[in-house]
């Protein structure tokens, strides 16, 4: 007979838990209902260059471990520090010479690339035009994610000791800027051929020219890179840059706050308050092309109906979305092409004016209901939104879409898919059959306005790889083709803007918000690129101590 003691204890255990949770210190007084607004002009694209050497920096990759470091196969924040592109994307999204000292059109269909002399790979072998031709040809196959940049290319040939010439079937206004992304990344041809299928993996390795060289990759644990003392632009001040994989945002937050990890990109916006209160490091807000959106996955069902998308768009309060999902670290965005994407382009002013002229985003549930009622869709069929598993912001996004749907009498179901299964959505029509929408966080890795427009609006044979709802508008197709094949920046911009006026209201992607590029960096460190350009250029080149 052991009795009342345990009863009391059992009840006490529960009450203690409840009491404790009510009594701990809280951040930001009564929990932040609205986070402090951010002045867009205060965004920082890069931190001041470091002046002092530092032994080792540990960088957290919330995206998880890369499957490969092959720039032609995948992107990750590791690659741009290892394998450089022909042109170098600057933090402010302008394009400067990189491995190429010059890359220019000599006539409407001929593009000449002059290579920097004296550049060597990590093993000391010189960079040759053959390596450049090899690397570009690897991207010019249909299975490459960079294939769209090369669709108009006819030939790629060595035309001198330090020169490569690319000829085109038609002029291509997007090609030069694309070379600043991983589409223009150069690898060592001999090593790549020798490694064969293992190229880029932990066993096969990689050989490039970038400011850091691959020293060691322990799968599942870490990737270690060391400063390339022979780097043509001067050796970086950080001796060892070690990448660890922390796919869980909360764990990454803890690790950064405890100083176990020195820095990371894409940290959880939800942890804004603790980052800002940290005495270990600082949260840097940078400009970005990243945006959150959702779009249709097939040509049938209510998702393919522009009225339904418009209605869902009207039923989501964008300001509240930015507060909830991004903790205020972003801003509503009118269309899928993010303003930062054209910030460094010649015709920037034209694009900016056209963006300003687009209708403002409305929040009007009544109007949305009317649209749904008039759509003629069968509302009893649930709409399924696919999101990648483990992405908290997208899980919240899906919940918000679901709630918006519920207000309009639409049943929205959420299908959380594993990263591998989620990627399949983009390759395999069968994987899209059971879903109506896919919600994503995307970004543009190089300057240009045509990226999304071509993928979402053109017929598949013209590059509309993600035009799953079979959108087809001859005027839009025509103007976009003109924009692509017109080398004159102003004329190209005119064509794009004409198309944008037509396609913007159809919301092929319901763009929910643009997100800032978030970097958390340990105090004492500086020099990192803190804009979205970190995806494409050696962001750790100037990394070091203050």
């Amino acid at each position, binding site marked *: 007979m052991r009795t009342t*003691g345990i009863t009391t204890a059992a009840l006490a255990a529960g009450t203690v838990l409840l009491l404790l949770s009510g009594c701990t210190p809280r951040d930001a007084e009564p929990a932040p209902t609205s986070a402090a607004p951010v002045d867009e002009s205060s965004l920082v694209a890069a931190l001041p260059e470091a002046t002092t050497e530092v032994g080792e920096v540990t960088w957290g990759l919330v995206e998880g471990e890369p499957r490969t470091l092959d720039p032609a196969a995948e992107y990750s924040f590791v690659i741009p520090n290892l394998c450089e592109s022909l042109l170098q994307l600057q933090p402010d999204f302008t394009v400067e010479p990189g491995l190429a000292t010059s890359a220019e059109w000599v006539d409407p269909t001929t593009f000449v690339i002059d290579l920097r002399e004296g550049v060597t790979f990590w093993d000391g072998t010189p960079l040759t035009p053959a390596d450049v031709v090899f690397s570009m040809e690897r991207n010019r196959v249909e299975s490459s994610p960079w294939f769209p940049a090369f669709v108009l290319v006819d030939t790629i040939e060595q035309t001198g000791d330090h020169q490569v010439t690319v000829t085109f079937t038609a002029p291509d206004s997007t090609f030069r800027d694309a070379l600043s992304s991983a589409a223009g990344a150069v690898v060592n041809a001999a090593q790549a051929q020798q490694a064969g299928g293992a190229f880029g993996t932990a066993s096969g390795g990689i050989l490039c020219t970038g400011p850091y060289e691959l020293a060691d990759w322990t799968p599942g644990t870490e990737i270690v890179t060391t400063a390339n003392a022979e780097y043509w632009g001067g050796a970086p001040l950080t001796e060892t840059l070690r990448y660890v994989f922390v796919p869980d945002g909360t764990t990454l937050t803890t690790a950064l706050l405890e100083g*176990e990890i020195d820095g990371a990109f894409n940290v959880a916006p939800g942890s804004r308050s603790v980052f800002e209160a940290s005495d270990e490091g600082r949260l840097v807000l940078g400009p970005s092309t990243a945006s959150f959106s959702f779009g249709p996955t097939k040509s049938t069902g209510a998702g393919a109906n522009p009225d339904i998308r418009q209605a869902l768009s009207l039923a989501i309060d964008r300001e509240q979305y930015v507060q909830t999902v991004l903790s205020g670290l972003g801003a509503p965005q009118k269309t899928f092409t993010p303003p930062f994407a054209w910030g460094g382009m010649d015709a920037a002013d034209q694009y900016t004016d056209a963006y300003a002229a687009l209708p403002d985003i409305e929040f009007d549930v009544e109007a949305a209901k009317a649209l749904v009622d008039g759509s003629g869709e069968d509302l009893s069929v649930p709409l399924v939104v696919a999101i990648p598993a483990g992405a908290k912001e997208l899980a919240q996004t899906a919940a918000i879409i679901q709630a918006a749907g519920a207000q309009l009498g639409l049943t929205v179901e959420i299908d959380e898919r594993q990263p591998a299964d989620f990627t399949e959505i983009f390759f395999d029509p069968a994987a899209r059959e059971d879903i109506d929408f896919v919600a994503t966080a995307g970004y543009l890795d190089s300057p240009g306005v045509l990226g999304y427009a071509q993928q979402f609006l053109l017929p598949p044979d013209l590059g509309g790889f993600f035009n799953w709802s079979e959108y087809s508008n001859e005027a839009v197709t025509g103007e976009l083709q003109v924009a692509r094949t017109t080398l004159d920046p102003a004329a190209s911009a005119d064509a794009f803007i004409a198309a944008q006026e037509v396609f913007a209201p159809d919301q092929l992607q319901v763009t929910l918000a643009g997100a800032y590029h978030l970097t958390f960096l340990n105090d004492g460190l500086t020099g990192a690129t803190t804009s979205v350009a970190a995806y494409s250029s050696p962001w750790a080149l100037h990394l070091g101590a203050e």
Partner: protein
Amino acid sequence: MNPRVLVQLARQLGSLTLTLFLSSVVIFCAVLLTPGDPVSAFAGGTRPTPEMIAAIRAEHHLDDPVWLQYLHWAGGVFTGDLGTSYVYRTDVVDLIAPRVGITVLLVAYAVVLIAVFGVGSGIVAATRGRIADRAVLIATSIGMALPTFVVAILLIWIFARVLGWFPVYGAGEGFLDELYHLTLPAISLAVLYIAYLSRITRGAVVGQLHSEHVETARVRGIPRARIFRRHVFLNASPQILAVSGATVAGLFAVSAIAEQAFGIGGLGSLLTEAAARKDVPVVQVISLLLVVVFVVLNALADVAIAIIDPDSVKPRRTA
């Protein structure tokens, strides 16, 4: 040891080997039962050409008869070739090897905590009177309802937010730093098992205290401490040892939760990650490893029990 014990022991060890063999077959079958084609898993995201498919099938022996595939896989245990990860495309062994150390250390730490506090509190409950017994009983009742993930979030919350005495992320570097980092994870692993082992110890010790030979020893005037050491605890230990295999194998499994919560890159977090990414070959090998741990520890426990108490050698009563 008399021959009867040896024969019985040999029979038990044989039975454990058979268990090991059969579990490996069960685990191997996982890949056969998995919906979808392993080829597309290996090709991952890309559309493989017929030549690629043929190459993948040949490389991973997918065209062999099932039994041959099994032999190849199980034989890999001895040759160090345990298959290829779907996700990382590297040998599973290369993925697992660097992670074993930290998980073993974590589990060992937890085992020490469990042994000290579990057995200790069980003995206290059995021998130090009603109040102590009551107190331990209350504590263990609560402890048995405190799973690793609950203890983990409580510890993270308390130590990350309020106290800050122990790190709540990562595994640290160097032995002492590792122990420091693993303290909270080990506690979160240990709590439920401490309570469990405390109960078992108390039951076994109480049983012995009331046994005839202890009564006899007491009547013969042997000192209490000596009685306890030589008679009570020694005779109670087989019951404690009998659950050790299941306990430690369980700890290895549950370490997945502690590792996830505290951001430790060990075997458990690899298991979780691999499962989430449907990386069946990795999950298979880790599962097999845990079965081996279970079987080996049970075999060791059987031997230990046979040495301590030859009469007790009979089919185990686990958990």
